[in-house]
Structure formats: structure tokens, C-alpha cells
């Protein structure tokens, strides 16, 4: 299991996204040299620090070595499938992963998301689109102070420390990826509100227009498997049939 709870790449540089700090490091895993080089040019131009790995079976080693803040991962890779690489990385880190997919087929996209990818971009994408996706994933939700609210929120029997990016149940910390934390936080901040998938897509993923609602479905499932006592009967992220999701009632001990 990865130790970074939220925003925690193992690089240990938690404040990389702050203005004026070091350039965010992006690991590009793609076997196409031309595309990788082009991506590097664009990313460098946009203020990122790119690294390149061309082989699926070397991606994990490269990940450990470079401590990226975000991974761009091609689906079709020599050596090891992108989906498997995604699972490998997820097993030890919550670092944001954006899949680069040439396939819009349902199966591939869902397989990638279920393996732990936070988001995906379909080829051929525009540079601006990709950069927007990367920035959204590196962005943090407003802190408690910015929102003018308490630092601690309760959902069900969970306690969320907004600025500490941690989720605890009975004092035991539950490890969430930054995306999962953002998703939970978005719901927890407005427990009275039912969020449609489209609203969540905008708030958590930064999509202004209707996008793939499977992103929401898959990540709600992943989140539930970590925070629910019984994922079959969720009490924290509750489904509202025909509308979307809402946070469960806080349980006062």
C-alpha cells in the first residue's frame, strides 16, 4: 500500500504546486518517441518538468526513480500493458495518473479507470486540453481557510481533516488518493446537496462541458471500497437514484 495519503507523491515535495515552487514533475510513459518528444516540448513550455519512459516494464522503476507529481500513461505499451502499469503504480502511490488512450472503446477506458487512473485523454488530443487536464489533477481544492469553514468535517462515521488531507475512522487513518479525497471532500462540504455526475465532473475533474460520467461511477466505486464498511450498502457516499450522489449523515458517537 502506498503511504502518501493525499497530495502525497513519494517525492515528499508536497508544496510543488504552489506558485513559485519547483516545476511539477511529469512522467511520460509512451513508446512513441516522436509523441514523447513533442509532449516534452509542450510540457516544458507549460512549466512542467517531463521525464520519459518508453517501456511498460520499465515504467515502475522510472516512477520510483523520478518521483513524478503526475504520470501520463499510454494504454498500449511494449513490455507491459498500460493498465497493468497503472495498477503497479497505484499499489504504491496515490500520484495522479492520466491515461493517454487511442481507443474510445468502453472496455479499455473502464479497465484503465478501474486500474486506478484518475482521468483519461483520447488521442488525438490538443495540447491545451492535455495541459488543462494535468493542471486540474495537480490543483488542490480550496483549503478550509479559503472556504471559510471548519478544518474538520464529518461524513458518516468518518472524520475529514481538510487541510491535513486525511480521513480517519475511529482514529485510524484511511489512505485515499488525492482524487478520491477531493471527491469525498466535495460531497462532505455540502452534505445537504445531491450532486449530479455532471456537477461532480466539473468540481472534481474540471470538465466544463458534459464528459464521460463513467469517470464518476468508477471512482465512486473505488472510493466506496476504501471508506465504506460494506461497499454493497454504502452509508457514506449514498446513491440518489436518477440524480447522483450525496454524503451520508454524520454519525455522532
Amino acid at each position: 500500500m502506498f503511504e502518501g495519503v493525499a497530495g502525497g507523491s513519494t517525492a515528499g515535495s508536497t508544496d510543488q504546486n504552489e506558485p513559485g515552487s519547483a516545476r511539477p514533475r511529469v512522467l511520460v510513459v509512451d513508446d512513441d518517441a516522436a509523441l514523447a518528444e513533442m509532449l516534452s516540448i509542450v510540457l516544458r513550455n507549460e512549466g512542467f518538468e517531463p521525464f520519459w519512459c518508453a517501456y511498460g516494464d520499465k515504467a515502475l522503476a522510472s516512477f520510483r526513480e523520478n518521483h513524478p507529481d503526475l504520470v501520463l500513461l499510454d494504454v498500449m505499451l511494449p513490455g507491459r500493458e498500460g493498465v497493468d502499469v497503472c495498477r503497479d503504480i497505484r499499489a504504491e502511490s496515490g500520484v495522479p495518473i492520466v491515461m493517454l488512450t487511442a481507443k474510445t472503446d468502453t472496455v479499455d477506458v473502464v479497465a484503465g479507470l478501474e486500474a486506478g487512473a484518475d482521468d483519461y485523454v483520447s488521442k488525438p488530443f490538443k495540447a491545451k486540453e492535455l495541459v488543462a487536464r494535468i493542471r486540474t489533477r495537480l490543483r488542490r481544492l480550496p483549503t478550509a481557510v479559503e472556504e471559510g469553514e471548519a478544518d474538520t468535517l464529518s461524513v458518516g462515521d468518518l472524520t475529514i481533516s481538510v487541510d491535513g488531507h486525511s480521513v480517519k475512522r475511529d482514529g485510524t487513518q484511511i489512505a485515499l488518493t488525492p482524487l478520491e479525497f477531493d471527491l469525498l471532500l466535495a460531497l462532505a462540504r455540502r452534505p445537504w446537496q445531491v450532486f449530479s455526475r455532471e456537477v461532480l465532473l466539473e468540481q472534481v475533474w474540471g470538465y466544463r462541458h458534459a464528459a464521460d460520467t463513467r469517470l464518476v461511477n468508477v471512482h465512486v466505486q473505488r472510493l466506496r471500497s476504501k471508506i465504506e464498511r460494506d461497499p454493497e450498502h454504502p452509508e457514506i457516499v449514498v446513491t440518489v437514484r436518477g440524480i447522483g450522489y450525496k454524503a451520508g449523515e454524520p454519525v455522532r458517537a
Partner: protein
Amino acid sequence: MPAGLGSVGETLQGGPGTQLAGRLRAVARRGWWRSPLGLWSRSLPLRVTSTVFLASVVVLVLGGLLLMQQATSGVLNGKRESAANEARQAVNTAQAQLNATDLSGEVNVDKLLYDLAYGFAGRSGGSEQYQVIILARGQTITAGSATSDSIPTALRAQVDAGSSDLLITPTQVFYDDGRPPVAGLAAGSGLTLPGTGRYAIYLVFPLTQEVSTLAVLQTAVVSTGAVLVLMLTLIAALVARQVVTPVREAARAAENLASGNLHDRMRVRGQDDVALLATSMNNMAAEMEKQITTLSELSQVQQRFVSDVSHELRTPLTTVRMAAEVLHDARDDFDPIAARSAELLQTELDRFELLLNDLLEISRFDAGAATLTPVRTDLRSIVERVVDAQEPLARAYAVRVGIHAEGDTTAEVDVRRIERILRNLMTNAIEHSEGRPVDVLLAGDEEAVAVAVRDHGVGFEASQAKQVFLRFWRADPARARTVGGTGLGLAISMEDANLHGGWLTAWGRPGLGAQFRLTVPRQAGGVLQTSPLPMAPRDLPLVPVPVLEDEEPVEDQVPLDGPSSVGALAGTGWQPGRGPS
């Protein structure tokens, strides 16, 4: 006819076969009671059983009648003969007795005849084999309970006329003690008493015994006949079932094959014709399975190819596109020629990408890999979304777009596909509207929802209504391309409509504009019969042109079929679902 009824009952309650059940549901829907002939023509066992039943009834009735006739005449002839013998003997005895009578003294003729009659009657015994009636000079002497009415008048007349032969004739025997009359034989003859004259003597033989014998026989014949008919019908039903069951099984197997269960086989039992049928069916199934597997493998290869092409083309396209973007962003630093080139590179890449997407979409349809994910949606919301999205284009062409909806316009549709169709139709309409308004009409009825996009632009020849859906088809090759569609838009729209089981039709006239109409069934998987909107626009000016005349009436009459009407409709009779694809 219990067997026949049983067969009908079985047919009505549905056999094990789903296909049969389906057929029965169809029958029930039409009301089998309203079309018993339909049931008759559909059920072979019913037909065989009823035919056998009717035929055996006819044969057994005829046979029974013949048998009864033979038996009756045999019994009657025997009786007649014995009666004649007995009567002759009796008459002779009586005559002899009379002849021997001593007439010298005072003779009481009446008493003599009385004695004679009772003598006979006594001889005939308690069995009442016959009864004697003697008619003498106006008085009737009867021994026994038969009345003189039992003697037919014809016989009486013949005897009175002086016939000396013994006459015998069938009659009805009436009794004076209240017994019901029975059939019988009457024998008559004349007796001469020397000196006193002639008397008529009649012997009446009741056929009580014979009648009851024949009655027993008749009962036996009828009951045997009934049992035989029953058995024959039952056997016929069984045989018919035996023959039909494997046929139905074969039909079911064929149905199963048709619905894609390629592994389904018939059971082969024995070596008879039915087994041969089963073997042939199985061989056919195996052959079909092989062919279909080959085809589906080919299709998988094709899909795989499409997927590979997708990946292989998309990756370099991504690189080129990003490179073009970098160049485009930096074009201010270039000299004018290079700057313009960067712009062209950028815009043409957009087109290239559109074309690639459309090509992949079409290949997906061709590979049969396109699937429908229907969701209940109000088509009006899709129309509004599309119209909103086309707002910049409409403004660029100075076109006003109006939406006119009536009725319930919700249907189970694949939103992405319907949106794509409508986007295509809208772009086309705006592009060809020449600045005149574009109208989007929505309407729904019980079964279907239709959207029509009407423009008042250049229009097209009626004969081109079919061709507009062809891939890469251009209305006028000489005309410059303005918006730069891929040329696949309408072909993809047609495929999308077909995937819904819907229709996409085009109507156009030069100078009168065009109308494209999409009709989709309200329920996913529904079958369209008519469209809530007419194919030709309602707002046509009333021009006395013959072309317009044959349009309005024919439109709703040939929504489904009739390639022959295509000529008359001159393009408007385009066949949905039988697209040129």
C-alpha cells in the same frame, strides 16, 4: 372427439416450444375464435385428427347401416319363412278339422270357429308365437290379445277376394290389453266350411323377439362404432403428434439457429425419415456454424484492424497536431508565408481528424461493432442542445433557427447518436439555407417520435433524395465546399438511425429547400409503422405542379414499403432501413 379436442387444447395452451408459444400468442392476439380457419390451417395434427375422425365416422355409419340392413333382412326372412310354414300348417289343420266336422246335425258354426281359434291359440302355447283371428260373417273371433286392427286392409281385401293361397305380409300388431303395438307378420287364408261358406282366418305373428334381438345388435354396432371412431381418432392424433413433434423440434432448432444459438442440435433417434431430417438439420447447422464462425472471425479481424488503425493513426496525428499547435501559437514570429502555412496546417488537421473519426465510425458500423445504449430522453432537450451548440454557425450564416414541438417527444434513444444525427442535419441545413430560416419540427405519437429539419435554401433534385446518404456524395461536384464536412455525415446519420430501428428520410426540391426527417420508435426495439411528421414539408407553397400532387397522398400510404413508389414520389419514397449502405 376427445382426441381431436385434446389436440386443440394442447395447441392452445402452448407446447414446450417457445416458437409455438409465440405463434399462439400471435393467434391469441388475433383471436383464434375469430379465425378458426387460421388455427385449422396452422395445426397439422388438428387437421389430420379431424380428417380421420370425420372419415371414420362416415365409414362406420355406412358399414353399420349395411350390417343392420343385412341382419334385419336375414332375421325377417327367416321369421317370414317359419311363420309361413307354421301358418300353412295351421290353416291346413284347421281346414282338415272343418272338413271333418259332421255337418249333419245342428252345428253351431260360431262355436266351432271359436273352438278352432282357441285350439290354435292353445297350440301356439304361452310363447304367443302367433295369435289367431277368424273373421266370420261380420263377427270377429280372436284368440289372444291381438285386435283385428292388426290385419292390414290390403290383406283382408285379398283374402276376401277369394284367394285360396296363404298370404303373408308385414304388419303392426295392436293389442287390446294396453301393450304397445309391435311389428309383426300377418298371414291370412280362407277356410271353407262345407255348406256354410267361407271364413277368413288370420294368424298374427308378433316380432317381439326379433325386434329385441335387432335392438341388441344395433346397440352393439353403434357402441362398437363409437369406440372404433374414438380409437381411430386417438391413434391419428398420436401418429400426427409423432410426425409433427420432430418437425416442430426441427422448426425450433432452426429458430434457435436463426437466433444465434449455433450450438443447438436436434436429437437423432433411429434411422427413419425423421432421423434423416434431424441429421440433415444438424449438418446444416454445423455448416452454418462453421461459416458464421469464419465470418465472425473475419469480422473480429476487421474490428481488430480498425482498432489498430485507430491507434496507429491517432498517435502520429497527436504528435502532428501538437506540433502544429506550437507552430500556430508562434506564427506571429514567422514571415507571412510560414504564418499562413501554420494556419492552414492547423485547420486542415482539424478536418483530417474529423475525417479520421468519421471513417473509424463507419468502419465500426461495417464491422457490426456499433451498439446502441438507449436511455429514455426527451428529444426536445437534445434538439435544444444541438441548436444551442450550432448557434455560432447559425450566426455566421445569419440564419434564424426555430424549434416547433408538439406532443410527447420522449423516446428511448442513444443520446450520443441522436445528437450526432441532429448535429449533422442542422449543419447541413444551416450551410444550405442561404440565410433563410431553418425550422426544427418535433412531434410524437403513440409509437414514434420524429424530428424534421426544414430549410428553405437551394434544395436538391428529387432524384437525389437517396443519394444524399451515400458516402462522400456531393450534390454538385463543381460547387465549392464551404463548411468542409467530411462527406460521411449523412451516411453515419443513416447508420445511427438504422441502429435505432428508425428512419432517416430526405425531401428536396430545387428552390424550395429541403427537409430531413428522423423518426425513431418510442421504445427501443420498437418497429416503426408511420411517422408523426410527413416526409414532405407542410409549408410548401401551393404551386400547381404535378410533382407536389402525388406527394401528399402517397406519403402516408407507403411508409414501409413499395420500391415501385420511388419513381412516382421521385425521391421522397426513399426506403428507410434499406439504405444504400
